[in-house]
């Protein structure tokens, strides 16, 4: 079903009026996408389910504050999902130490190799990144957060966010290369 602005407007209006049918339609329409977002941040599938629930409960509560002029509904929901995921692990104290990392300009991975990898495999690799680097990598690469926004959300300096992103990149590259060499060895 194509999503016209009118459809979304009607859906949002229904949710504002707390109509269960509209709320259920919102869940039906966006749950799969948001679960995908939640799983990128969650440490296990059970946590991802909890984050998804939190996300919808909060979205229904805050639906009045959705401003269509500022972005799409799915974009707004994705931001809520990310923030719910961060809130879910807020009690964990990540080691956000600032480590200056200098990365080479280019990645030693060809686009062919990357395109052959299934997204699930990539996500499995991303999920093996250490805490902190994983959140920053997810937020910066997949969810379009700026470093300032990441810094505000995680309560860390923007410089730390940059260095964590660099570390995430480097580690991910190493893991992909390792995977690639294993595949070649198997052949």
């Amino acid at each position: 079903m194509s999503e016209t602005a009118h459809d979304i407007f009607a859906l949002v209006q229904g949710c504002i009026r707390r109509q269960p049918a509209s709320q259920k339609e919102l869940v039906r329409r966006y749950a799969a996408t948001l679960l995908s977002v939640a799983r990128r941040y969650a440490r296990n599938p059970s946590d991802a389910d909890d984050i998804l629930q939190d996300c919808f409960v909060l979205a229904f509560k805050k639906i009045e504050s959705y401003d269509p002029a500022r972005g799409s509904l799915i974009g707004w929901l994705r931001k809520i999902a990310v923030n719910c995921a961060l809130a879910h692990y807020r009690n964990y104290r990540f080691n956000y130490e600032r480590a200056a990392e200098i990365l080479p300009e280019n990645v030693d991975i060809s686009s062919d190799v990357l395109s052959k990898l299934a997204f699930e495999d990539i996500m499995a690799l991303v999920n093996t990144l250490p805490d902190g680097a994983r959140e920053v990598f997810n937020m910066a690469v997949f969810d379009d957060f700026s470093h300032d926004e990441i810094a505000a959300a995680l309560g860390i300096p923007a410089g730390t966010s940059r260095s964590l992103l660099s570390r995430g990149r480097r580690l991910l590259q190493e893991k992909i290369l390792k995977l690639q060499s294993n595949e070649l060895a198997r052949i």
Partner: protein
Amino acid sequence: MNWQEFEEQLKKQAEGHETPVDTEALWSRVQTRKRRRFVLFFWWLLGAAGLMGGAYWIAARSQQPSAVSTSQEEIQQIARTNVNAPDSSSVSINETAPVSNPTLNVPKTTSPKTAGAIRTSQHKNTPSLAGTSPKTVIPKDLPSHLITDAAPSSPQPLNPSTPQPLISSTPQPLNPSTSQPFSTPPPPGNEAIPLLPTYIRLLQSPAADEFVLPESFISPYAPLFAVPAKSGYQVGIQSGISYWNVFHPSGPDAVFPRANERLLEAVHAGAFFQKQMGRRLIIRAGLQYQRYNAVFRWQESSILANQPRQVHNYHSDGHVDTTYIPSGTLVEKTRTVRQYNYVSSWMLPVDFKWRIPAGRTTLMPFLGVQAGFQSQSGALLNANGQPDFSRYKSIYKTLFNLGLRTGISTEWRINERNHLLIEPWGSVDLRSRTGRFNPAYEQFWQAGVSVGVVRMMSYE
């Protein structure tokens, strides 16, 4: 491949990726969570009601100890009053007692009339207990049969530890100023006791348990809640102006950029009632309406970045169309922020005031909370960047909010019943107007002054 390409390719693969999910099961779990939130709210409401009920109960209960814990002076006043009262005949005189050792033979159980009088005076908290009792009159027409023959040379102070003949042959003036402390234990049995009216003796006798609460029963909060003899409730109306703005704890994308901050006006009006809960403590509750002036000037950052802007226009009939504002055409415009065009609120403030009387003027610093609803509505921009008031159906939200209040009420007594109220105050909202995860985190604060009239409605 450079990092940007690498990440874009990753992002491309992530876009549109969906993880299969059982939406029915998810929906049922979400509904359960929603119900749980409602139940939590219900319990919160019940707890708040219980707290208020408890406070009222303490206040109501503390009135009783305040009456019972009458000071010695008050007991003396009761004594004097009752001696002079017509029913003082309830003090029976043992006329068969030897003249040389006259005593007042007070019965263990007093007459119903006297007991009733005691009970009434203890429980009704009448003005007579609170210091406005009838003037003390020393009985001049003391019956002659109460007078003994033994005549001491001079008036002696009464000493409870060494029982004295109550009444000597020479009439002794009953000098209240020389009365002994009533806390002194009474002599055992029905032996001679100092000059104590029946009910005072009752207070000291085992039979008095019926009437007197021990000190330990008196609430430690009694002084706080003890209602003065002359208290009632007051109603008032007030109106005024305030200035308001928002805090910016965070938010690079704040709706109100710092550069454009300025104080904004708001007007308010309301009615309230207040009740004195103690000598100093006053509780006030009311209803207040506020209307905020909320037109802002700011620079639209996305337009400054030369990005074309897409604006969805939602018509009241449900029709939606889109306006594209070309890049660079708008640099700085007066724009009405949608959610803040018209902000009005209905709030229920509850304040606790501390009364400091100073002549005709009474100063009452207060702390309080306010809860209520704010409605926010606004207008969308048309293609010229001007607000179009015909299209704002979708931009409407109602928000429950909590806030803290403080200020100083100054009441100036015009006459017995009417007071003029001048009240500088400030408040801060505990909740952001913009959603939990909105980068623009905004809490309203206000400072204003109210002027009104307070009228005393009843005396208890």
